[in-house]
């Protein structure tokens, strides 16, 4: 039965098609594995015994009808949504079932998973380390084969970064390609539903399933069509931009080496690389933390304990910090210097990318400046925690698609390669991701089975 949980989504679909196994057998296999391993990982907040489909793990910030959805917060500890997110409905149409809801930083605010009110998720590669965040449980669950694939959300890197730190594929599509209806809002103009999968082809499949116009999300208007032959057509002749800003100070040496090696492999496969400039990258973190928190300060106002959930004192420290930040940024006397200025810088960042994409097809660089760090390491230093999002927030600010593909290891910890492209260039990005995955060689999974019962805590 363990073999079943190793299959990618594409392999699983083939197996089901060929009647090699049934959906029920799949659910049993995954439920069993969750039962065996999740006490170590704390990836799941809720396990759904009545999965009834191809098992997907869903970040607990995406609402599921009848299944408790907490957003990683105490304030929603008892919240059972009366409706499904659009992405959930679309997955149901494809025979997918929710095997469980995964742990995450409270309201997706965090880069390590440590801001969950329900305890931190552990990195399956090293239980003493963070899995990244905020889609911590989703990334850990996929890495440990606790589900066929997972949904996460990405506001500033929350799908790509944990995917990178856990050695799985994380894909954040173009803003507006996937409906946000039912995604509990953090920074509405940045929030994106993304996938965490065992392979790039899986990511393409999931995107095809969940994308497309939704009358319930006014920003969602486009459909992604997957063309498998194109996906596997190689990268010959593609121009890859390498932004100097993504390789400067702060980037771990060993991570840098792994990324450089991947770039050389891409060149060997026929890509042309060019140096590009993203001049406003240095303002990205500040811009992101003003816009995201401003929007969050309004988005989180609805938690007043009147219609659902508990009182506002149940918010965690980081959530309170961001509500305060955002409230100040929007206040009279601060608005022009903070929110309005950040909105202008955001436009400049967008223009940076537009200019760069006149010269290249995609941009390649690291996802995270480091590999997974030790639990607690950055907990008392929110600024250094914020800086770990440096390479990912720009895609959210510009609304671009971004893919994180496992490309190697540094000190036995996975490193992800980030591929960014112009809006709605998903197909190109996936093509590059696909070859990276192929030349990455061994598709490694952490040896979770070897965790000794006494090994953790």
């Amino acid at each position, binding site marked *: 039965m363990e073999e079943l949980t190793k299959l990618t989504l594409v392999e699983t679909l083939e197996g089901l098609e060929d009647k090699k196994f049934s959906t029920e057998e799949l659910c049993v296999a995954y439920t069993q594995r969750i039962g065996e391993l999740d006490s170590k990982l704390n990836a799941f907040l809720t396990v759904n015994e009545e999965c009834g489909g191809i098992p997907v793990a869903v970040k607990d910030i995406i*609402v599921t009808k009848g299944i408790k959805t907490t957003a990683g917060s105490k304030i929603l500890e008892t919240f059972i*949504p*009366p*409706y499904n997110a659009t992405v959930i409905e679309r997955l149901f149409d494809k025979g997918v079932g929710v095997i469980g809801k995964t742990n995450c930083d409270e309201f997706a605010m965090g880069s390590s998973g440590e801001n969950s009110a329900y305890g931190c998720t552990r990195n399956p590669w090293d239980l003493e380390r963070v899995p990244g965040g905020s889609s911590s449980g989703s990334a850990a669950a996929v890495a440990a084969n606790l589900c066929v694939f997972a949904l996460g959300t990405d506001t500033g890197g929350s799908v790509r970064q944990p995917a990178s730190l856990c050695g799985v594929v994380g894909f954040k599509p173009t803003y507006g390609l996937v409906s946000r209806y039912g995604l509990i809002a953090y920074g*509405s103009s940045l929030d994106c539903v993304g996938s965490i999968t065992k392979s790039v082809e899986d990511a393409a499949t999931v995107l095809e399933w969940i994308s497309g116009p939704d009358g319930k999300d*006014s920003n969602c208007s486009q459909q992604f069509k997957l063309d498998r032959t194109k996906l596997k057509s190689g990268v010959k002749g593609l121009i890859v931009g390498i932004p100097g800003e993504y390789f400067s100070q702060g980037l771990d040496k060993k991570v840098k080496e792994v990324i450089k090696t991947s770039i050389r492999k891409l060149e060997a496969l026929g890509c042309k690389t060019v140096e590009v400039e993203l001049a406003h990258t240095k303002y990205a973190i500040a811009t992101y933390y003003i816009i995201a928190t401003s929007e969050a300060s*309004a988005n989180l*106002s609805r938690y007043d304990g*009147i*219609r659902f959930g508990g009182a506002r004192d149940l918010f965690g420290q980081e959530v309170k910090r961001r509500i305060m930040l955002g409230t100040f940024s929007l206040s009279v006397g601060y608005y022009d210097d903070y929110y309005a200025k950040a909105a202008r810088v955001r436009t400049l960042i967008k223009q940076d990318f537009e200019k760069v994409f006149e010269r290249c097809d995609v941009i390649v660089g690291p996802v995270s400046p480091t590999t997974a760090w030790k639990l607690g390491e950055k907990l008392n230093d929110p600024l250094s925690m914020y800086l770990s999002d440096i390479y990912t927030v720009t895609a959210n600010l510009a609304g671009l698609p971004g893919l994180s593909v496992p490309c190697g290891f540094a000190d036995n910890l996975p490193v992800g390669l980030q591929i960014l492209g112009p809006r709605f260039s998903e197909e190109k990005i996936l093509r590059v991701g696909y070859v990276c995955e192929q030349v990455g060689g061994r598709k490694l999974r952490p040896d979770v089975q070897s965790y000794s019962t006494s090994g953790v805590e």
Partner: protein
Amino acid sequence: MKTRQRQHEPVIGLEVHVELNTESKMFCSNSTQYFGQTPNIHTCPVCLGFPGALPYTNKKAIEYCIKIGLALGCEIAEETVFERKNYFYSDLPKGYQISQYRWPLCRGGRMVVKNKVGEEREIRVNRVHMEEDTAKLVHQFGISNSKGATLIDFNRSGVPLVEIVTEPDFRDLAEIRDYAKKLQQVMRYLGVSNADMEKGDMRLEANVSVRQVQSSKFKVQNELPKYRIELKNINSFRFMVAAVQYEIERQIEALEKGEKLVQETRGWDENNRRTYVQRVKEEATDYRYFPEPDIPPIEIDKDIETELRRQMPELPWEKTERLIQEYSLSSSQARVLSETQEFADYFEEAVKVVNSLSLSLSLSLSPVRIANVLINKKFDREQVLPARFVEMIREEEDRPGVSSEELEGAVHSVIAENTKAVADYRKGKEASLQFLLGQVMAKTRGQSNPVAIREALLRNLR
């Protein structure tokens, strides 16, 4: 009072909220019918502000708002943006209201109103914008020892609301009354709102201040007072007018005593018939407006504007003007007939019927005559077709009726017997004339022609 008013004049601006009568709410597909409904039946994750829910814009509401803007002579924005207005209140499920601030749908219109001496004055409309209504709080008072409770009915939450903001151009209550009446008429003509003030379809807020009337030698008349009193949460038009009147007098009195007035929000205490302070300036809320990220900016295509312009009905004041021109009606007749579209249509339909008659038959039935009968005769227009109505006038004419001497006699005795009604009429109470007319009709056993009675009455009352 007279001398006072000469030294001080009120400066008043109005904010009117109009609830649109679209089928569905502003940002979700629930019914907008909340009046008299079981609480909380027209709700969904969107209008309850549930986690994950997003607004999707009601296109019809946007069109209605544009129509209102067009009727008021506004300029329609090429691009309009929704913003979030942040504040906490238990009737506001999201903790913010989706409204408009920097980029309203319509800007810069006007409305001509009559002041207390019957002069026409132009009121400038600053903006017309789109927003959503809040839920409705129902306060239950405790019985004996039990505590009271406040219940929330979300049926109203998210009903489309248009806010019409004027410049502080009103100078007396007559202008306010006329403005409100005309606005109501416009809404009904456009068919965008029932505009029933008693049901809360149309709600007024007023900013009232007073200033010294400057002599015309120094023309700095347009300087606004440094303070203003906002009259809010007054749920009846009658109370609002009373509150404005009270405020004008209170403020003049205060200024005359040399007191300094400050910015504050006041409500109306109907029991004591006076306004009271609800909030002073120091506590004024910072709404932290910012563009609503869930709704992309809306572009108003010129074609859409053109099409909506094409769909515009004849507006009340246009209709009045046309009725005067086309049928030689008096301006008061024309105004009464154009009070509703239905009334004016009925009149024009009746004239058409008359015009289709032979010349000899139609000769005595002039449009002025038709208008007169229509205005004075009380009958259910829904039950009587215009053709039948014309027939009725003719039948009355054909009736043997009473001799003019007999009628004259009846009029004389009715005037003698009803001194109070006569006095009332002379003081300007129009309804008294109707009463006297009824009395004459009774005396002549219903045999005389109402138009003839009216003429005789008027002649004798002059």
